[in-house]
């Protein structure tokens, strides 16, 4: 299953591509809980028939709590024999709906061990409201609320999620769609909560040329800004290493949101990326 045409996202938006890959990864019936965000407003007008699956949208921060209720209801219906299908549950939220306003509901749902997949599409700011910073916004990025550059680094959501000891966590991107699809399938098939963090480049607020959508994604992989890896029952595995690790500068300079960086800024970012990458390599090499 894929999203039907007619969604009103910006031209070149990565979100429908990501969601279609995830929906298409399994055959089971799926119910989606959407957080408020770009995709939600662009796809849920009553007259539009974008979604091939049932969808619920309630508020910005509660999508994981909403799915808790759906999952509990489904389990009771299955126990009573009133529902025979093996239904899969999917939450879709942006970085705001995951790392910021949605973090408490996400943490609660993970701790309660509901059987669902949480898909975070991270575009590094509140794009639906005009590009204000979130806790996923990278260091020194210019957003509408950090016009002279963000002074803190990103929140590491994967490590936060990992601390809940859930069976499956993955990071994916447009750089490898087959990898994304495979991870989505694994997430759906794992028992209990699963979390997938996908980078979703935003042409409008990352300020790059539309033709570079793929290039930005490839650079995020090859600079190790956005590594592709998974954590299965606590075991790290880098699913695709960069062909050759290249400087972070190449990823930054293609996007105008990182304009006016000083060489010190770039050095700081490089150090941060290296530290994260080294940690990841050491964790997966230890296996």
């Amino acid at each position: 299953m894929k999203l039907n045409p007619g969604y009103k996202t910006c031209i070149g938006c990565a979100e429908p591509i990501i969601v279609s890959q995830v929906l298409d990864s399994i055959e089971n019936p799926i119910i989606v809980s959407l957080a408020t965000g770009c995709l939600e407003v662009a796809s849920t007008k009553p007259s539009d028939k974008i979604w091939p699956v049932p969808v619920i949208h309630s508020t910005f921060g509660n999508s994981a709590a909403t799915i808790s209720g759906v999952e509990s209801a489904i389990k009771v219906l299955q126990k009573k024999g009133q529902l025979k299908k093996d239904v899969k549950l999917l939450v879709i939220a942006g970085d705001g709906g995951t790392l910021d306003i949605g973090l408490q509901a996400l943490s609660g749902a993970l701790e309660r061990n509901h059987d669902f997949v949480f898909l975070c599409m991270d575009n590094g700011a509140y794009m639906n409201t005009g590009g204000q910073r979130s806790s996923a916004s990278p260091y020194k990025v210019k957003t509408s609320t950090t016009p002279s550059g963000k002074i803190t680094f990103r929140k590491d959501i994967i490590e936060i999620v990992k601390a809940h000891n859930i069976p499956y966590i993955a990071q994916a991107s447009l750089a490898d769609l087959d990898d994304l699809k495979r991870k989505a399938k694994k997430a759906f098939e794992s028992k209990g909560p699963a979390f997938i963090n996908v980078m979703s480049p935003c042409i409008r607020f990352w300020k790059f040329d539309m033709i570079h959508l793929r290039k930005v994604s490839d650079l995020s992989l090859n600079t190790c800004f956005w590594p592709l890896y998974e954590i299965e029952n606590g075991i790290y595995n880098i699913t695709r290493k960069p062909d050759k690790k290249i400087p972070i500068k190449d990823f930054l300079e293609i996007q105008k949101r990182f304009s006016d960086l000083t060489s010190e800024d770039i050095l700081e970012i490089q150090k941060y990326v290296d530290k994260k990458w080294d940690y990841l390599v050491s964790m997966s090499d230890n296996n």
Partner: protein
Amino acid sequence: MKVKALNGQQAAVEALRQIDPEVIPAYPITPTTGIPEGYSKLISENKVSGTLINVESEHSALSACVGASSTGVRTATATASQGLMYMSEVIPVVSGLRLPILMYVGNRAISAPINIHCDHSDSMSVRDQGWIQIYCEKAQEVYDLSFIGLKLAEQVKLPVMICMDGFITTHTLEPVKIESDVKIEKFVGEFRPKNTLIDFKKPKVFGTFTMPDEYIDYKENEEIAMKNALQLYDNINMQYNRLFDNKFYPKVSHYKTRYADYVIVAMSSVCGLIKDVVDELRGEGFKAGLLKVRLYRPFPYKDVEDALKNAKGVVVLDRSASFGSKPPLFSDVKNCFIGSIQSYVFGLGGRDITKEDIKEVFKKMERKDYDHTVRYIR
């Protein structure tokens, strides 16, 4: 029918046992912690078929209710005070999605300053959000109105709050007449909503995105549903009365109102005290009466208007304020009565109200002591 000694929370748990909702997401808060506690005990004893979700906050409690109810199952929860405040973002989502969720509220003051005792500020703050609100005087009403409220909610597709006074009704043991499981099951019936999230053949979006060309239509439909609820309430109450003799819960209850010169309008547990005062004053030849409002949303304007039409004076006792305006119950009653009427606020944060206070209120009416201010009984 058998009589059990129960407090309001236990009466709610007993009603929930008989309704047997599939999902109860709840977060404990004083003074309604006894409801999730009591229900989890029922689950551990295999006396119910549903599940309790011990969520991490009230916001998530009501959010999980939205998920469960949209899936097509009966859903209930309980909260109070700050919990209801924390839920308040989701409150209009529930009514907007037309989900008949049953929620118990143990009416409690809201911060600041923090206070765990009774007043109605919590549920009054969400009175205009499309929820049916029923205010109970005692545990017996909590029990019976759970079924009436749920049936009404499911018929008009609006959520319902069953409100009881915190630490008064929630914690006072009373004899409660419990009906048989079979008869209650017959009254409550099955819940079979037309639209659910598990309809995979015709997948729907719950919680759509609307523009100015559509939004107001959804909201007008909520108004129409409220209007229907007002009409249906009496039918459902009659049905209940036919099954259970001596149980009759009209939208408003008269207590010596008809030939009273002076009437107090009030809700919830204070009505018991007012009845005592009415009796004492009647003994002195003073024509006092009480009008108890049970169904607060939708507000029964006509019933109130009819009840008050012969009164020389009316006082409305509110257990919550509307700072900078007139208190909620007063504002609604004022719309039903042309004549001398006075607003009093009492009992905020559990402040005691005495018979003497109420007598004084009646006597002031006789002395034609009215003004346009909101008077506080302290």
